[in-house]
């Protein structure tokens, strides 16, 4: 009651309010209707921009993923083979090195061999096959490693195999199966090659798996920029012997505006799964990852 | 009113601060200082901290052996014979200071903290302060060859010579003949009249300015610079002011200035073996080569100091302090790239005149943090000691020059046990 009396009593001149506010009947200050209130922007508030309409439907996204995987997943074996091939074809007794190894460092100047190949940059590549009397019994049966590199090998036609990054592979016999692991991190390309390397690409794919009489399996994670499509594998697992060979995991695909689709799949061994766009539900995507994964697994067959 | 360092110093100059009791206003000594900066952050476990070899949490030099020569404990390794060679020959003149805390992990800030004791963007580093308190008649008070420099009140004392010997080519005029546009220096016969008139004009402008004003100070400092320039010009035939770029070449330039009594301070920088740097985030094994190359140069330096004379006729080693430091240390463990990252504790060395050698002050605890130190005795004192900082190092350096460190380092006093 007292409060009501107070309220009723205070009907004299309104208390003074700040600019942009007016006194209400209740004596409080309220924002004036068209006040020159401090702008939202001046207080640090801002409106998130409207998210552009999704450029692809779920069906169209299937096509985008097809384009992404058109040349397959990045495989370090192809990078390795190309490196050794060009080194072998292009070197002479002193360029890019005089010790005949697979390591060279042209830090300030390039060299051109008498075969017409020009070498520039730094490449520290090693390859090793385990011998029966290897002092390290736990060593991989086969391993190759390009340590973080930045090089260019230009052929006599002027086409350059460029590499900025690193790649790695190791394979081990595991009874009748082979267990492998590897990474491809960086930017690579050579116009004369076919497939991904010919197109030039960037990736940071971290993968491991097995192959053998019992089938193939792999897990993968990483970023892909293939055929001008940016994608990110949150996780991907696949095993020909389980789940009917349906892959499980989550993959994202980026739009030109910088927003991401995210497709999850493989739950209950179903190839279809929920799709989101900019973190909002966007229906369902059905995609058969197995062919691309099988092709990739095939490239890992080095032992 | 914000008390910036500039105001502290101005107040000190005006006698408005209570002088520190230990240092009455004494005349500056002629002691010279050569600062050798291992830029990028050295791994103290490879050299200064043999105690780390036995710590399970530390991946120290894998082939290092704890050793001691001339009272200096250090990490010995057959890959680094110059390190043991240095301590064998000069350990009795060397004080190693371990466990200096630099409260940042960024190179630029760490360098500033170690060289000025402060984050203040307007501050003089120890070398500039020393030069400012040296003989006012020095021609090139502080020769900055390669590396960072922080100056405010004593900017006029800092002489940069350029990364590629630019000072020499400017001095002899060849810098102009190399210009893309055809230009020439003044005819020789015109040099003196122009110089004289310029000096007179500058003096007149100074005289016409209010005493103590910025204008007066500007004209005065410019006049002093012109006088110093004339001195250098007179000696230019004998003075080798070009720099070969490597550490040895940089040091040679400074020694040349010391010999001729031109400079009080010099600053040189070692950017690692083949300039690959001390900042070994990948491939920490480079620290072997870095230390070996650095100490090779230090051995040559000390030999040169012993054999060359200063203006007094005495060997330079009797009047020179060598300060060897790096702005940060490195983490105890190796990262996934085979390197080590930044660590907020580092070590330093003081070598030479006025230094109580044959000792290592401070240490690293099991977590590789600096142990608290009793400044008077240099002993580890976990209950009453202080953790050493760049300010303590700076105070020690200033004390070696009979400069009261109080206005610059405040409560962070010198490590008395390091002073002879």
């Amino acid at each position, binding site marked *: 009651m007292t409060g009501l009396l107070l309220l009723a009593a205070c009907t004299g001149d309104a208390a*003074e309010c700040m600019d942009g506010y007016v006194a209400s009947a209740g004596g409080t*200050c309220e924002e004036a209707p068209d006040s020159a209130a401090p702008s939202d922007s001046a207080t640090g508030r801002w409106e998130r921009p409207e998210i552009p309409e999704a450029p692809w439907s779920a069906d169209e996204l299937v096509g985008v993923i097809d384009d992404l995987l058109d040349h397959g997943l990045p495989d370090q074996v192809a990078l390795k083979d190309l490196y050794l091939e060009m080194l072998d074809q292009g070197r002479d007794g002193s360029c890019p090195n005089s010790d005949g190894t697979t390591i060279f460092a042209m830090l300030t100047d390039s060299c051109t061999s008498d075969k017409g190949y020009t070498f520039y940059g730094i490449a520290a590549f090693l390859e090793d096959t385990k011998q029966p009397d290897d002092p390290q019994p736990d060593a991989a049966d086969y391993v190759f490693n390009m340590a973080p590199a930045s090089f260019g090998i230009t052929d006599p036609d002027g086409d350059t195999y460029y590499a900025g990054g690193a790649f790695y592979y190791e394979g081990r016999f595991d009874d009748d199966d082979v267990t492998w692991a590897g990474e491809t991190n960086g930017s690579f390309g050579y116009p004369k090659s076919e497939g991904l390397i010919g197109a030039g690409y960037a990736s*940071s794919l971290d993968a491991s798996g097995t192959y053998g009489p019992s089938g193939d399996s792999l897990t993968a994670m990483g970023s892909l920029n293939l055929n001008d499509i940016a994608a990110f594998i949150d996780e991907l697992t696949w095993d020909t012997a389980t789940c009917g060979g349906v892959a499980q995991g989550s993959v994202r695909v980026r739009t030109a505006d910088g927003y991401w689709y995210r497709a999850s799949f493989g739950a209950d061994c179903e190839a279809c799964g929920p799709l989101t766009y900019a973190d909002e539900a966007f229906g369902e995507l059905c995609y058969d990852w197995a062919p691309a994964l099988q092709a990739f697994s095939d490239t890992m067959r080095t032992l | 009113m914000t008390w910036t360092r500039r105001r502290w110093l101005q107040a000190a100059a005006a006698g408005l601060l209570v002088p520190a009791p230990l240092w009455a206003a004494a005349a500056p000594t002629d002691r010279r200082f050569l600062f050798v900066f291992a830029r990028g952050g050295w791994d103290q476990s490879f050299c200064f901290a043999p105690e780390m070899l036995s710590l399970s949490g530390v991946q120290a030099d894998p082939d290092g052996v704890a050793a001691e020569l001339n009272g200096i404990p250090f990490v010995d390794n057959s890959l680094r014979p110059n390190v043991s060679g240095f301590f064998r020959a000069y350990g009795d003149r060397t004080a190693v200071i371990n466990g200096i805390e630099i409260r*940042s992990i960024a190179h630029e800030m760490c360098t500033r903290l170690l060289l000025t004791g402060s984050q203040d963007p307007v501050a003089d580093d120890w070398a500039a302060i020393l030069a400012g308190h040296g003989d006012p008649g020095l021609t090139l008070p502080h020769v900055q060859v390669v590396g960072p420099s922080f*100056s405010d009140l004593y900017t006029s004392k800092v002489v940069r010579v350029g990364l590629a010997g630019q000072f020499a080519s400017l001095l002899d*005029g060849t*810098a102009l003949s190399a210009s893309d546009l055809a230009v020439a*220096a003044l005819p020789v016969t015109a040099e003196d009249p122009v110089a004289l008139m310029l000096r007179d004009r500058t003096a007149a402008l100074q005289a016409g300015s209010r005493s103590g004003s910025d204008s007066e100070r500007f004209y005065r400092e410019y006049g002093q610079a012109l006088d110093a320039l004339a001195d250098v010009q007179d000696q230019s035939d004998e003075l080798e002011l070009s720099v070969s770029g490597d550490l040895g070449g940089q040091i040679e330039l400074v020694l040349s200035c010391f010999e001729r009594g031109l400079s009080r301070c010099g600053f040189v920088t070692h950017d690692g073996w083949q300039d690959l740097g001390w900042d070994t985030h990948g491939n920490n094994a480079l620290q072997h080569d870095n230390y070996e190359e650095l100490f090779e140069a230090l051995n040559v330096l000390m030999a040169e100091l012993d054999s060359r004379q200063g203006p007094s006729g005495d060997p330079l080693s009797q009047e020179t302090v060598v300060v060897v430091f790096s702005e940060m240390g490195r983490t105890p463990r190796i990262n996934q790239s085979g390197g080590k990252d930044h660590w907020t504790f580092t070590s330093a060395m003081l070598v030479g005149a006025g230094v109580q050698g044959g000792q290592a002050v401070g240490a690293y605890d099991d977590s590789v943090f600096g142990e608290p130190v009793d400044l008077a005795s240099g002993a580890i004192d976990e209950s009453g000691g202080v953790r050493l900082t760049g300010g303590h190092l700076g105070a020690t350096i200033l004390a070696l020059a009979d400069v009261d460190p109080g206005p610059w380092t405040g409560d962070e006093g010198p490590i008395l046990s390091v002073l002879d």
Partner: protein
Amino acid sequence: MSGLIWLALACTDAVVPDPPATDSATSPDSWTEPVRFEPLPAPRLLRRMSLDLLGVLPDLDDLDRVDADPDALAQVRDDLLEDPRLEDRLVQLLADRFLTRIDTFPLSHRDYELEDTQEHPFELAVGEEPLRLMAHVAAQDLPWTDIVTADYTLANGLLRQVWPLTSTDDTDDWAVSTWTDGRPAVGILASNGLWWRYATTPFNYNRARAAAVSRLLLCEDYLARPVTLTSSPTLADEDGTEQAVREDPACLACHVTMDPLAAAFFGFWWFDIYDTQELTYYHPEREPYNEVFLGMKTSYFGHPVSGLAEVGLAIAADTRFRTCAAETVAESLWRRPVTVDDFDHVQHLRALFEDGELRLKVLLAAVTDSGEYGADGPLEGDDDHGAVTVRLITPSQLATALADLTGFTWTTEGFEQLGNDDRGYRTMAGGVDGVSVTSPQLSPSVSQALVARRVAEAAASHAVRQELLDDESDALLPGVDLDSEPGDAAFDSALDSLVWRLYAERQTDAEREELNALWSHVRGTDGADGAWAAVLTLLFRDPRMLST
């Protein structure tokens, strides 16, 4: 009774609390700068403004005008702000703040197979790219927020040749250019030049970049806070460090805001920090690495954002961005760090800036109007003023001023000698190299005097050749030829005008006689051309020329 008391209390004028005392600084008209300085005479203030805003000495006409009517200075200053040379000058001013004009980047011209003659142009172009964008925004009177929201950058022909850029301008000049590799519309935050300068390392995870953005654009310097490692063995390796920055309150004080901001920059993540492909292109596919490496999504000081594009918008809306713009301009023109004593003034500047639709020229005008900027010296007895009332001319100002006067630019094998330190004299002359030297020198020094000597001689030599020997110009010494002598109308007038132009002070009779004597003396041994070279050298080396 208590109710009546309540009533009495309640119905006073303080039903609602009085509004907080008005921050007078938010009202542009209500705050006035205390008078603390003796002002410069108008011509000398114009000289300072002209060198700071355009990098050149003022025209004789403008000097005469403000000398006759000091009130005209404001209009002349406004004209300077509309001068096309402002844009180039802003590049230099901003270089000292953003520190991108460095001599060595992770990539060199050779990585792009450019000729060695393009070494210096390449370094210049890379370092200037973000600066040019900002200068363009300022000079074109665009809102300053465009520097973090623009969908373009500025690039010259060389950059368009080697980077994924396109432009409607097919000249070699700096022009609005668009990235073609999918990087978001975030102005300088999408700049190669900025990120090559502020790189990151494998275990830093873009934190250094977040710190740089905060310092440069918000004036919040994470690195100004002490970093004190607690006694914890978990910090011994990177796993322990990552745990500490997530859990230790001492580390979280910075990392709780730094890391989510760092999460926005993974499109610029490089797997080899010296590789051409890696550093040239934006990597949109790597944006999600924030979740992998930092374990978090992007947010801006607590506000979730979807990525770098929204970070730009968030910065644009941040009040600190506006205040920082005011501080940046104030520090650049006052030539000293802004302190807490400047709070009211900075808030006043910010208010003007906001009222002026965030156009940087509003700040430039306001700061050049300030008493501190126009100070000749303190009021009597106030020596503790903290202002910089006499400044050393910067090497970039000296270079452009002499070029404007004489046509001389000091290059050697294409390297701007007052703009680099590899072969040149930038820091020797008191400039900033962006790495070891991060603030301009304020006082003379031996090195600076030596550089000033040689550049003065070179400019004088060039001017004599142009004006007197080859007769290709008449701008510096109008009406003068090799037969002119002291006492000739053209000779006397030219020198008087030149001194007026150089120092914004009239030559005294005594000074005129001294110069004439010098000229005559040197003419006797080295001819009229030698005499003019000597006189010009002296004038260019005078401390009044080398100070502002």
